[in-house]
């Protein structure tokens, strides 16, 4: 083999081969352009998408405004929509959806209490209902000023319900439910206790009500034991004013052993766990009282 001349030719041939091969691969510049073109297209589609969303949102807002107006004025007006019917149906649904979401949110904030705007938005009036045993009882109201801070201006809450201290202890500036929930609890418990007293007077004429007070937190009843005709004085203390069941039951009788007897111990726990007018029915059935 001719070393030097073969080297020269072979090396030259391999060089040419490499050159020929490199010509077959596509050049860098055009690929970069295509890349950028593709990116531009993607961005344009995104822009079109966003534009469409904005348009939808605008039409939604218009539709929602007309829906809100419909609700307040109860008018049967059909708002003109400059889009085809299929889209308008969908849009209507979406608007209704946002409306319901907002309503749910408002309901959550005010906790389901009946609230209305007063004095052109400068105040509001909250209505608290009380009920017991499926019967609606008294309605109580709070009128509040919104500016400069939330403040109670008028109310018809009875004076023995600690409204002022409940307001002070609450976080009503940020969450009005921290005032309304405990207040409603107090009012409902009071209404329940009051109703129980009324029922005791109506249904159990043989039981004498010796003492009660305006807050209905104390009740003293006089029972008559059937056979011996002895009198039993029963004191019910309701120290927890948010509950309608007593926190303490105490019997007093001439027969010192009676309160410790098994039947009367049972009666004691019965009175702690059942509303008094119902407990008396049971006690009568068991023959413990007249």
């Amino acid at each position, binding site marked *: 083999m001719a070393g030097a001349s073969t080297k020269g030719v072979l090396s030259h041939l391999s060089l040419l081969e490499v050159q020929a091969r490199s010509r077959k691969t596509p050049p860098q510049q055009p690929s970069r352009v295509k890349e950028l073109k593709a990116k531009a297209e993607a961005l344009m589609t995104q822009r079109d998408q966003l534009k469409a969303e904005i348009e939808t949102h605008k039409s939604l807002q218009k539709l929602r405004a007309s829906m809100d107006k419909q609700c307040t004025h109860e008018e049967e007006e059909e708002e003109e929509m400059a889009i085809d019917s299929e889209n308008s149906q969908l849009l209507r649904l979406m608007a209704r959806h946002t409306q319901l979401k907002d309503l749910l949110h408002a309901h959550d904030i005010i906790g389901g209490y*009946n609230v*209305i705007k*007063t004095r052109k938005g400068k105040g509001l*009036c909250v*209505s608290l209902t009380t009920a017991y045993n499926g019967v609606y009882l008294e309605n109580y*109201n709070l*009128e509040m000023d919104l500016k400069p801070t939330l403040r109670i201006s*008028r109310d*018809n*809450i*009875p*004076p*023995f319900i600690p409204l002022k201290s409940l307001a002070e202890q609450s976080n009503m500036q940020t969450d009005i439910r921290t005032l309304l929930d405990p207040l409603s609890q107090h009012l409902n418990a009071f209404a329940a206790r009051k109703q129980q007293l009324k029922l005791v007077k109506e249904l159990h004429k043989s039981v004498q009500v010796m*003492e*009660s*007070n*305006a*807050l209905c*937190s*104390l009740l003293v009843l006089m029972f008559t034991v059937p056979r011996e005709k002895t009198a039993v004085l029963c004191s019910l*203390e309701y*120290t927890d*004013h948010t509950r309608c069941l007593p926190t303490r039951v105490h019997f007093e009788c001439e027969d010192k052993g009676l309160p410790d007897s098994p039947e009367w111990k049972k009666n004691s726990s019965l009175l702690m766990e059942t509303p008094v007018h119902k407990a008396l029915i049971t006690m009568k059935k068991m023959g413990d009282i007249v």
Partner: protein
Amino acid sequence: MDESTKRLLQRLIRRIPTQMLRTTLDKWGRLTGGQLHSMDFTQSKWALTEKLLAICEENELAVKHITELEMIYIIDNPNQGMWYAFQLMDPEDDAHSVELTQFKEQFKSHLRELIRHVSVKIKKHTDEAVWIRIAWGDTFSRPNHMKPTYVVHSLQTPYVFVTSLTSKQKPLLSQALVLSTRYQAIKDANLSGRKLTAIRDLLMRQYHQVFPTRYPTPLAENNPAVSNQHIEKEQAESAANRLQAACEAFGGGMLPQLQSAVYKLETKFRDHSNKTMTEREEPFRCVVKFASTNLLESLRHCASSGIASTPVTPLLSSIPLKGKNYFVITDNGPGPSSQMRQPQK
């Protein structure tokens, strides 16, 4: 029965109207059926008094029985004399569990500690109110039953109503009340009137209060005068608005009967046409008094008929809102709780 007891009975019988005498004596229960029957209520008061005196002698009744009778009569007819409202302040923790027997014992013992000769009678009325009758004596003399003080209080509420109390007796009563109800202080509530039921209903909010609602029920106005159908139609909406505002300020339906409202002004004189008066440094003191057989009703009617503009000025609406009918108005900002800021013109 000694002379003073006889005089007490005579005065009491003179005071009780004849038509109420029989029921009151019946409730008293100190006369037998026969004795009650023997009284002829068509006779003159003088004759009845003599008869009753004789019967009481027969039954050997004493002063304490006569005061019982007086108390029964007053409890059934509380709307006489002048009643003043007081408010207990800052309850202790156990104020809410004060019950009747405890209150009775504590009140009597505290009062007896403060003044040796005093006669106290406490009775619980069916409507949860505790009635107290106090006959005051002093270190040397026996209790004077001719001028008793009556006190009415509902436990667990901050209000106390008092009639016939002198300024000397006031601190003694205040002390005894504060200690026995477990509060820290007592102050004048600036509300007074002839009808106990009215001032009590006002403070305990036991009358129909009107609040803004979404669906207002039509409020009845006692105004039958219909002059012209057209005027009525035009004015319907504004009349309804005025009525709503008037009822929200004062209440709906029957209103507690107050007889007067007094505004004591300690404000500077303001009338630019009168330089001498406006130049004075000291405030121009004057007292404005509104009087009526039913003040709140009159004010409500002023608002609903348009004489007073709506929304009702806080000067007037404060009467039911704050439960007061005595106000001191000064120029400088909010003073003590009995004062009210003058509205800026």
